[in-house]
């Protein structure tokens, strides 16, 4: 709503009438487009009841749910690993030792640009050459974690830097060492503040697990592909899988937003000031 407040004035009677007309036109346009799409599906027999009936049976769903569980398992392990890696890299990038700082920065910058797919190929084709043949699960999770740790590192770095400098100075002033200050004072506060960003980044990882089809790790998308080649219901299978992904990821995003909203009430740091301002703007809009 705040975006509309910046862009538009409070509408008068004429503007409100125009908005209503535009609204009706928009609804008609979207409805016409959806009708065209549905027609296209129906014309090619994709909406026939017997094409959808298999998905009312339990065995189909059990197969997909097993795939979903594999997806979630891979996403959880990859998130845990890349968060750990991210903290180490962030501390490395903020370190006072030049060698450490440069190597962490180099790693982050390279991993930000190299496609995850390339890392997957490296583990898939490169490592066996040197006698390392990982189980399927790790062939997917290892490259994902290696790549995502760079993203998490940047998030952690932003969080650490956003913290008030006084926190670190106070920690050092009461006699804590550098490491203790980081571990006891800075990191706990930074992580708490970053929780929403960390959760929304885990959505990205969850989506990336769909690369499992390359290593034939049977996560949700790969299970769906196997299922579709077996029952020949390609479009139906993809629609259902997409819905599962959307529900799962949208709930995670929602969780991130809830966490962010809850933080607004904690009067610490710069961020809350901005939230307070935003809350005031919201109150104005209600007047």
């Amino acid at each position, binding site marked *: 709503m*705040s*975006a*509309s*407040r*910046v*862009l*538009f*004035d409070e*509408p008068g009677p004429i*503007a409100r009438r125009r*908005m209503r007309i*535009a*609204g*009706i036109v*928009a*609804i008609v346009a*979207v409805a016409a487009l959806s009708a065209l799409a549905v027609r*296209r*599906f129906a014309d*090619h027999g*994709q909406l026939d009841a017997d094409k959808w009936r298999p998905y009312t049976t339990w065995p189909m769903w059990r197969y997909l749910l097993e795939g979903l569980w594999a997806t979630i398992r891979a996403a959880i392990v990859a998130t845990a690993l890349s968060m750990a890696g991210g903290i180490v890299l962030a501390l490395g990038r903020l370190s006072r030792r030049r060698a450490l700082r440069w190597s962490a920065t180099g790693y982050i910058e*390279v991993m*930000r*640009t*190299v*496609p*995850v*797919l*390339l890392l997957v*190929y*490296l583990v898939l*084709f*490169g490592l066996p*050459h040197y006698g390392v043949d990982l189980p399927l699960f790790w062939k997917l999770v290892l490259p994902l974690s290696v790549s995502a740790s760079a993203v998490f590192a940047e998030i952690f770095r932003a969080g650490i830097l956003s913290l008030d400098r006084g926190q670190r100075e106070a920690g050092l002033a009461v006699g804590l060492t550098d490491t203790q200050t980081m571990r006891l004072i800075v990191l706990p506060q930074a992580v708490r503040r970053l929780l929403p960003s960390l959760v929304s980044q885990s*959505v990205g990882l969850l*989506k*990336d*697990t*769909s*690369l499992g*089809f*390359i290593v034939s790790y049977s996560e949700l*998308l790969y299970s769906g*592909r196997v299922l579709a080649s077996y029952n020949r219901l*390609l*479009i139906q299978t*993809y629609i259902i*899988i*997409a819905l599962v*992904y*959307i529900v*799962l*990821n*949208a709930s995670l*995003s929602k969780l991130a937003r809830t966490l962010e909203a809850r933080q607004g009430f904690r009067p610490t740091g710069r961020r809350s000031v901005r939230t307070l301002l935003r809350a005031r*703007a919201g109150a*104005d809009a209600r007047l």
Partner: protein
Amino acid sequence: MLEVIQDNWDLLQDGFVGTLKLTVVCGIASLLLGTLIAACRVSPVPPLRWFGAAYVNLFRNTPLTLIFFAVALGFPKLRFNFSFFQFAVIALSTYTAAFICEAIRSGINTVPIGQAEAARSLGMSFTQTLSQIVLPQAGRAAVPPIGSLLIAMVRNSAIASAFNTTELMGTSSTMIENGYKSLWVLVWIAIGYLIITLTMSALLAALEKKLAVVR
């Protein structure tokens, strides 16, 4: 390690140009589509806002790989026939547009309401307020996130290789099949991606510098 690049120069060049083409076409398409959806999301017309929100939630929460599969395998079933390159463009730009839309919207959100109110109280019209006060500030705030989205798009474009599109990542399987050491093949491909993204980073940094103003 050097013979990989000497023997496969043409192949790598084709792939590099393919990725570059994909980057430029998808970049423009997703910027246009993203701006359009963002305009819907912030419009005062509720149905347009719902449409924008639905689009963003749909495409942001679906894996890109799934969108690729749905487009490349589902469209032919509905008798929409395009080339592989066109499929890749459709999948990649519809996906990226959802993120671009959110970047633009949060850029608009960073403009303090006082700015628009001040413009209006000076007697500026709607068009003037938008084009001279709000959008320049919003654009400045949106450039860095859009830049990192476009760089992420380049790495995402690698997924197109699984769908027969001629691009950089796809050249790797040909070379590995021809018996070249996979490690060096992949290192050279990574360097190819770095060339594209580092150039983009430099261009974006220059743009940011040019747009920067003292607040």
